[in-house]
């Protein structure tokens, strides 16, 4: 093989591998688009049971309950309209996980329609909000204002 040919073969192989990696990545990433769900999306078009996804929304006020085992908790995640998805989580909740604040639950949708979370992402500190939840606070504030002003009228 001539030197020039060898270089051509090498360049071609490298290009094929890297473009292959790129295509594979893009293909896999397209599936990632259905990795994150809002409650309304999860109700309208639920993921396959058992598929690892994330569910993001607000923890409904008054919905948080702990099982007798002391470590399993149940709560409702609400979205923009009145859609609610029940979530079950066993573990130590993040420090800033409270009712009425945003949460991203990582886990799988169970056959009974309960989202079984194996990890919760809440606000990590003053600076960090899960990216999916940015901007959701405003909406929630508006919604809560609506709810709390009903009695005043």
């Amino acid at each position, binding site marked *: 093989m001539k030197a020039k040919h060898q270089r051509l073969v090498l360049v071609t192989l490298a290009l094929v591998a890297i473009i292959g990696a790129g295509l*594979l990545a893009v293909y*896999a990433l397209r599936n990632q688009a259905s990795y994150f769900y809002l409650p309304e999306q999860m109700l309208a078009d639920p993921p396959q049971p058992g598929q690892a996804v994330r569910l993001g929304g607000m923890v409904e006020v008054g919905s948080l309950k702990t099982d007798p085992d002391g*470590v399993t908790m149940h709560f409702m995640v609400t979205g923009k309209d009145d859609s609610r998805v029940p979530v079950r989580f066993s573990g130590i909740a993040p420090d800033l996980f409270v009712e009425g604040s945003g949460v991203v639950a990582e886990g799988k949708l169970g056959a009974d329609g309960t989202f079984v979370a194996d990890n919760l992402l809440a606000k990590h500190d003053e600076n960090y909000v899960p990216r999916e939840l940015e901007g959701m606070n405003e909406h929630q504030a508006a919604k809560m204002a609506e709810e709390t002003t009903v009695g005043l009228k």
Partner: protein
Amino acid sequence: MIAELGLAALWLAAALAALQLVAGFLAARADGETELAALIRPAAVVQGALAAVAFAMLIWLFAITDLSVKLVAANSHSMKPLVFKIAGAWGNHEGSMLLWVTVMALAGALIALVERRLPERTMQATLAAQGVVSLGFYAFLLFSSNPFERLPIPAAEGQGLNPLLQDLGLAFHPPTLYLGYVGLSVAFSFAVGALITRQVTSEFARAMRPWVLGAWVFLTIGITAGSYWAYYELGWGGWWFWDPVENASLMPWLAATALLHSASVLASRDALRTWTIMLGVVAFSMSMVGTFLVRSGILTSVHAFAVDPERGSFILALLALYIGGALLLFALRASTISEGERFTVASREGALVFNNVMLSAILAIVLLGTLYPLVTEAFDVRVSVGPPYFNPVGAIFAVPMLVVMTVGPLLRWRQDRLERVRNEVALVAALMLAALVLFSLLASVSLLPLLGLALGIGVGVASILPLRGRKLTRVPLATWGMVVAHFGIAVALLGMASESAFSTERLAAVQVGEATTVGPWAITLEGVEPVAGPNWTALEGRIAARYDGGEPTVIDPQARSFWAPPQQTTESALITRWNGQLYAVVGDQATDGRWQLRLWWKPFVTLIWYGGLLVALGGVLALVGRVLSDLKRRHVVKRMAERRKEQEALS
């Protein structure tokens, strides 16, 4: 006065960087020597000294807590321990940028002082390229992030340092990564210099290699330390989250690893010329992309950083300028770089090319996965890309790379037959097969960890095979470096696979005095008490842990609350044994008085970080070996020249 001196030194350094650029440009255009060209080396040396002076001034200001300086007032406090005052100098945006440019200028000074192997014109072009890159960062500092800015009225007290950063390990973590990034900028300048003069030779690769090795060692240490910090500080029990900030340091590491291997092909065998140049450009581009992602605030991450969109755009502009310029130059010049030596597929070069292509593919996967959320965001779709993407897609390329890694170091340069290494290949294959069968029979291990265990054993054994039949004291240091680094990869791989495959977890709510178990451990919660530190309060659990019925060890995990700035952290407690770690986190108290405990037994998890350190040690050995043999060679050349002179004098 000190702040003004620092600022003046910075302006002068910037002027010298501009001189380097102009003189280098003229020297490159003129065919012969120009008078200006003689100024390039001295300019680089003085520039290095001035940048160091500016940085020393900043450290001084922090050490004495000069509160008339804005940066000090915003990031320090008079009551802080001295070591954190000093670390505070680079624990912020402006200071870390000054650190970046100082390291870069010092590197330039060092090249100007010691590097004599390259043709003088390539050297001048390299220093000119360095001038261009530094100039961008000087402009950034002087026009948008002046670290020496004074306050109109001195502050009465400083605002303190983020409590998460008041940790010795973390104080030295960013400089470590930065040294890596900056080392790659030197490799970039070399690549540009060589492109300008079209002198891509094995001498060039030998001159560039120590810089790549050094950068790679620092990146390796930085990534390893960052992973361990996230593991014990976040309290999630994980060691890699595919967080954008982690990816920002992984991407330059992948590129530097590829560059290291291709530079060594170029140095030893004079092949892969254009490819090495290309990787030199890509590696530095990745460190710029990393800086951009971390500093621009374009994405949030669990590692909180100060963010400022204006700075983001500045770095983006620099990024476009440098990478665009270098790629343009590459496109114009690549075809004029002459052919290198040839080799066959089954050869050391062939294996290294394979490694390079696979590393580049993994780099592409990580880069796309990291940037994808930014792209979809532009179309108002929020996406998170996590382990379900990175792990399997990355493994498609990592697994074949690791397989080839078991054979590559055994092959000869240029041309070899696989039959020659038949016995070694058979041994490694048999071991991997045995591991696969054994682990799949013993425990229910999922595919990736299973492959990891088998490959870890295969790579581990294969990595020491190059030493067989050799007198160990005669093996060159650089070869030891390769052996140790490859063995480190195997060790880390075994740690990762073992952690994913064999970790056991216990989550329980227990009364004080109650006992529970996790893996071979018996755990008793002896009490929970409030404790207070200098700037935090915490609930501290007292946990007695017995391994396999042995003596109890008491550990104290905490849930800590800081008040300025208000922040909560989980202080996990660890017991490290030779065969793994117990990891304990204390949670909330239930209404009936029980406390939540989260416990993990992670067999051999520490191998992950020991492996990382071994990889770095391998790099250090190779670096020392290369530098020593260079010095020796220089000495021999000098002696030969002297002898020739003597003989001439005699005749």
